[in-house]
């Protein structure tokens, strides 16, 4: 795995206030753009995926991982992390409402796979979704995603 898969504070927004699921995806998507992971068209594709296939990106209670297919809009693999001040409904019967949004930009490369493994490992305990959503410290969140032991 490359050392590049480090999550920095610049990839995190705390206490965002989207009114709709689309706004929530735009916030996470624009953060991917700002960090140079994707071109702006990718954000439209992230929303299109949900419109086409439904809110399947809400993969656990309170957690959405919006992403689009790998395409020329992806510059490099990366993630963005957005906590929501108030929960937002995506229309997912099992896992709504969402409090934590993790935007994914993925090539099918080692960095992307490392990010997926990290997400699988971190959220093995589903309670951590709400603990991260409540956390007011970007560095602590970045540390969790960089594999460090953190007390929230």
């Amino acid at each position: 795995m490359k050392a590049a898969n480090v999550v920095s504070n610049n990839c995190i927004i705390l206490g965002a206030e989207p009114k709709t699921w689309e706004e929530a995806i735009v916030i996470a998507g624009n953060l991917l753009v700002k960090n140079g992971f994707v071109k702006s068209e990718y954000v439209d594709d992230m929303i299109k995926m949900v419109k086409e296939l439904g809110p399947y990106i809400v993969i656990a209670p309170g957690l959405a991982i919006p992403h689009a297919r790998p395409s020329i809009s992806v510059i490099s693999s990366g993630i963005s992390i957005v906590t929501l001040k108030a929960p937002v409904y995506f229309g997912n019967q099992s896992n709504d409402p969402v409090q934590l949004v993790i935007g994914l930009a993925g090539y099918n490369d080692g960095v992307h796979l490392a990010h997926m493994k990290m997400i699988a490992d971190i959220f093995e305990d589903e309670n951590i979704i709400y603990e991260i959503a409540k956390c007011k410290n970007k560095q602590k969140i970045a540390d969790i995603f960089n594999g460090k032991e953190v007390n929230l």
Partner: protein
Amino acid sequence: MRILVICGCGCGSSVILKMNAKKVIDSLGINADLEVSDTTTYKGAVKDADLILVGSEIAEVITEINVPIIILNSFVNKQEIRDKLEVFFKEKNML
């Protein structure tokens, strides 16, 4: 045993579910290959599959297949994954 995990692009949620399901299946002592696929190309991959794992939204999109489907609400809840897989493997006399 060949298990197909399907999501919208075969690169995000299905990869996470595959990783978690693999751990559960290994712990059950079942020998299985897990692969990911997406909603546009699954029909080719599904022919050799013995089981499909998906979320409920994707389950609605997947049609015209003769392979058992397990629908997961959470892709990270290993207990749910284990409970549902155990039922399937017991029915197949694999457990």
